């Protein structure tokens, strides 16, 4: 995001938001902000409260406590219509009228959003999802992937300020998923704020400026890079042709190295505070010691590693006796 964009009011502000169904907490004490034009990923296991959060922010259900503003409008029953005029939601299930054609489905929703020049908007939305040639097809005759695209076209009709996408690539083949990713990238370029819930971690890593990991409570929030750094120490992985004679002598006193171990593959894993400083020094030391170095690389933890680590921590806590 550019500096002027960051200075603008956030597209979403959520403060201590909680939703309970009876005794069951769907999500609790969730707070975060999403900047305008940001692609914000919302990750979590099944039952973590992701969809309930989307439904709450889109005014379908009322929060039990806490507050939020959506597209600059306070989240309360008085402002429901105003919020829904500024947002669009693509639920996980496309929810199309299967006996109506693609164009008739969009026509209905163009009317509900009271868009100007609906025919032009429908045409534009269909072109955006590459479905212009299927406008007259009944939705019931479309494949799951195409239905998903119609649902996406429907959510673009009103030019929303905030677009909630709930598992937009669920059940899509890789090509259709890539098309959806490209469309999200285009929307980001147009400055649309996107709130993306997904199970696909590589999707979140690729598309999102920041991600939040929810497991009923918000576990972590930040850019994928920040999450990695917060959760995992930085490390160098060294592969040599043969085991080193005295690794402690080599690594123990090396600059910026906090510790070392040997992993199951016979590689040496060095915990480092500054890989940029440690790598050249270690390389020199290895060469001087006559080691045949095959590779030295900084270990890269994926968003999936971050996610699994957090969810494992939660499972561990649940297993512990109170």
């Amino acid at each position, binding site marked *: 995001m550019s500096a002027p964009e960051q200075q603008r009011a956030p597209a979403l502000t959520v403060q201590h938001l909680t939703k309970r*169904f009876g005794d069951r907490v769907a999500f609790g004490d969730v707070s975060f902000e999403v900047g305008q034009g940001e692609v914000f990923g919302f990750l979590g296991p099944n039952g973590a409260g992701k969809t309930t959060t989307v439904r709450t922010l889109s005014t*379908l259900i009322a929060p039990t406590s806490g507050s939020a503003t959506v597209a600059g409008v306070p989240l309360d029953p008085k402002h429901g219509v105003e919020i829904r005029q500024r947002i669009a939601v693509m639920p996980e299930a496309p929810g199309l*009228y299967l006996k109506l054609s693609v164009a008739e489905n969009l026509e*209905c929703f163009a*009317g*509900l959003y009271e868009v100007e020049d609906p025919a032009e908007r429908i045409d534009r939305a269909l072109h955006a999802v590459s479905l212009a040639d299927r406008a007259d097809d009944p939705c019931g005759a479309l494949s799951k992937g195409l239905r998903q695209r119609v649902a996406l076209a429907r959510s673009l009709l009103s030019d929303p300020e905030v677009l909630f996408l709930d598992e937009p690539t669920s059940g899509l083949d890789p090509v259709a998923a890539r098309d959806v990713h490209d469309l999200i990238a285009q929307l980001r370029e147009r400055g649309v704020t996107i709130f993306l819930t997904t199970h696909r971690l590589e999707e979140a890593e690729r598309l999102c400026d920041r991600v939040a990991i929810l497991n009923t409570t918000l576990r972590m929030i930040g850019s994928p890079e920040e999450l990695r750094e917060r959760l995992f120490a930085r490390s160098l992985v060294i592969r040599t042709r043969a085991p080193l004679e005295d690794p402690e002598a080599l690594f123990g006193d090396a600059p910026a190295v906090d510790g070392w171990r040997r992993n199951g593959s016979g590689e040496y894993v060095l915990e480092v505070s500054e890989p940029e400083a440690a790598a050249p020094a270690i390389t020199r030391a290895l060469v001087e010691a006559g080691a045949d170095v095959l590779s030295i690389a900084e270990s890269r933890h994926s968003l999936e590693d971050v996610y699994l680590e957090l969810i494992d921590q939660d499972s561990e806590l649940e297993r512990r006796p109170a």
Partner: protein
Amino acid sequence: MSWRRIRAIFRKELREYRRNGAIIATMAVLPVIFVIEPLIQIFNLPAASAHTLLHKDPLLYMLGIPALVPAALAAYAVVGERQQGTLEPVLTTPIRREELLLAKALAVLVPALVISYALFVVSIVAIALFADSAVASAVLRAPQLIAQVVFTPLIAGWSIWVGIGISARTNDTRVAQQLSVLASLPTVVVTALIAFGVIHPSLKLALGLGIALLVLDRLGWRFVSALFDRERLITGTRS
């Protein structure tokens, strides 16, 4: 209140009706039951018995059409959307629940009125052409014809709100349809009792029933709007 949003749902509903064989069948078959019985009775009546019709109003039996046809259709209104997964996308648009319900009600009312009035006109023409002239003049009396015209939308309105109310609180389309038709039966019974002369119609009775139905139709919209709980409909739990 946005008439554009109401029109969007209204048009969508009519398109769905046209393409749904079960709905077409309901609209076609149910009314026939209420047309055939009085017509057979009238066509079989000899001129000498025409005077017996002065205490009966067989055509009022046809008010069962606006009582039952809309009930069957209205029962689908909310639960049908829920079952096909379209309710959530609709509720995330700016439409208010009152607008959604009014649109749904109008989409049921219009075809119900068209069917009811069309069959009524066809019946009147058939009676005028084919029934004995003494019988025809005993049946086709101005007060009865006016009552038919006035009560058709009032009864349909009541059935629609009952149907939509049931639809908003049930989880299964078939259950909703059965309950709606069941809930409309008292109206059918009252009109049948008047038609067969068990209850003697009078201006006072007509005015009383008319005002009562008008009030119920108006209250029905508000009451059903209150029953329409977004959260329960989406999550299946109470807010």
